[in-house]
């Protein structure tokens, strides 16, 4: 999605211990896939945007701990999707 102008946007800081590694990336993409909307993320406010539903692409992004993710959602449930993704990151992907 090169053009994200009409998407709902938000940010979230990765406060879990290891960044978007194996387990967090699986949880991240599973949650993204549960929404109809297109969900993408980027490490910069202006892209490039990465499909949040693809674990391979999420892992390739090598998102380190402490990074701030920019999220963009577009679709019928974009609002819920964005809130849920931010909540998952804030809850450290449920890591104990």
């Amino acid at each position, binding site marked *: 999605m090169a053009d994200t102008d009409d998407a709902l946007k938000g940010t979230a*800081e990765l*406060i879990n*211990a*290891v*960044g978007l*590694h*194996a*387990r967090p*990336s*699986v949880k991240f*993409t*599973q949650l993204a896939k549960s929404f109809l909307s297109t969900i993408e993320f980027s490490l910069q406010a202006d892209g490039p945007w990465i*499909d949040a539903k*693809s*674990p*391979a*692409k999420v*892992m*390739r992004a*090598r998102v*380190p*701990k*402490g990074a701030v993710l920019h999220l963009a959602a577009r679709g019928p449930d974009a609002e819920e999707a964005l809130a849920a993704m931010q909540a998952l990151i804030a809850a450290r992907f449920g890591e*104990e």
Partner: protein
Amino acid sequence: MDLAPGHGGNGSSLPVERRLTGRPASPGLAAGPVFVDGPEIPAAAAPIGGDAEALRRAIGAAAAELAALAAGLGGEEADILGFQIAMLEDGALSEGAFDAISAGMPADHAWRSALDAEILDYEASEDPTFRARGADFADMRDRVLAHLAGTAGRRNVPAGSIYVAEDIAPSLFLSVDWSGGGIALAAGSPFSHVAMLARSRGVPMVTGLGRIDAAAAAIVDGAAGEVTLDPGAGSLAALAEGLAASRRAKAGEDALIRRPALLQDGTRIEVLLNVGRPEDLEGLDPGVCDGIGLVRTEFLFRPGHPLPGEDEQLAAYSRIAAWAEGRPVTIRTVDVGGDKPVEGLTAEGETNPFLGLRGLRLSLSRPEAFRVQLRALARAGAEHDIRVMLPMVTVPAEFDQAAALLDEEVAALARLGLPRRRPPLGIMVEVPAAALGAARFGADFYSIGSNDLTQYTMAAARDSAAVAGLNDTGDPAVLELMARTVAAGRTRHVPVSICGDAAADTGLLPQLLGIGLRCLSVAPMAVGRVKAAIAGLAHV
């Protein structure tokens, strides 16, 4: 691959013992017959129904096989396989392989090339955790190749074997019965998923051994990072002794670890934990300790990252305190400085950072950042028994300044109507001046930081091998400064503990108890050992 094929050692002469040194990946001792696992290069089979269809089936079969394996596992182990399943089910991973097939490449070659490129990319990463993921992708690569070649099936590693290979796939690790066995790897990494699994299952493992030549039997010493091939009678006797000793020690510690620590005369010694990051507490039962004596907060202040906000700090402190289930938790304010720089916080270009702007000195010079931490601590104190400890304190005026800042922030939180509690405020005694003048501080408690106290008293750097002999916490001068601190605590009726490495040095225990210390704060790994040592002492 630098492995000679294994043989039964059926030569007429006995093989000579060889000792190899690698990197410790999982502690423990194991011995047994060697099982050498070479790389399986499946022969290409003629695919039925075209290469693309063959690859699709092989990926599907590999994912199904992993799902079946994961079904019998839980927690971390299931997660590691879940990661592989999620990757195999993601078209983005195999896209390149299918493109290559469209261009005329055979399925196996196409898949191998695509995955090899992915693996190289991970292995080039600077972050060791990402780097270690290469092994997970190699595991996926080989499993799919085996399905393509029709050679899929579990390798049968007999129970009790010493598994010898270049590396080991997590899915293979999870399908083997390791009781009594161990792992010796020519390559591999202590950061790999397999190393993590081996540690949690207690399977001894050494990585990075380089060339491992053929042997019939081997001993793996995971803690030392040593592997002995074809061990002789002497090594086997030493192993038996080591195994018996660690069984005895372990049994003794297990019997004691969840009980309060008592000397034989009934004197109660408190044993607290030192914690460097929340993950240190994972899988640990709070019942093994009397509380947390030191939480280092530096994990929140990372080089090259923005300073942590109040909410992030509050969440971290609350999480650690919640683990303690009501036991007291002592949190040290940030202890960074010249030798541990943090952007936006520490001073630069000091010629002698150990005597420069560090610990509380730095916090007082940067009150805006310090106030954020004090607020987060006061807020965490509303729900938990939090105590706040100041590092590298030298004179009472510094303590008074910090106490005033804390009072101001508590008052500000009260005005906002936020839940808070003014936590007890204590000092770490690391500077000889603070030990000599301990009674002059208005501190609510004292905690002896024996590492720095030793280096400053003996004028011998902790990290210098050349003066290691002088860096002795057991020296009468250091013990006297500690005794002064204990005496100040008695006079002022406030608690005194010790949280440096000396607290876990069981050889020093009689001296520490002798000067009147009754509270030790040690690393989680040392709790069993320290409690066993306490139980072994008749009286002070």
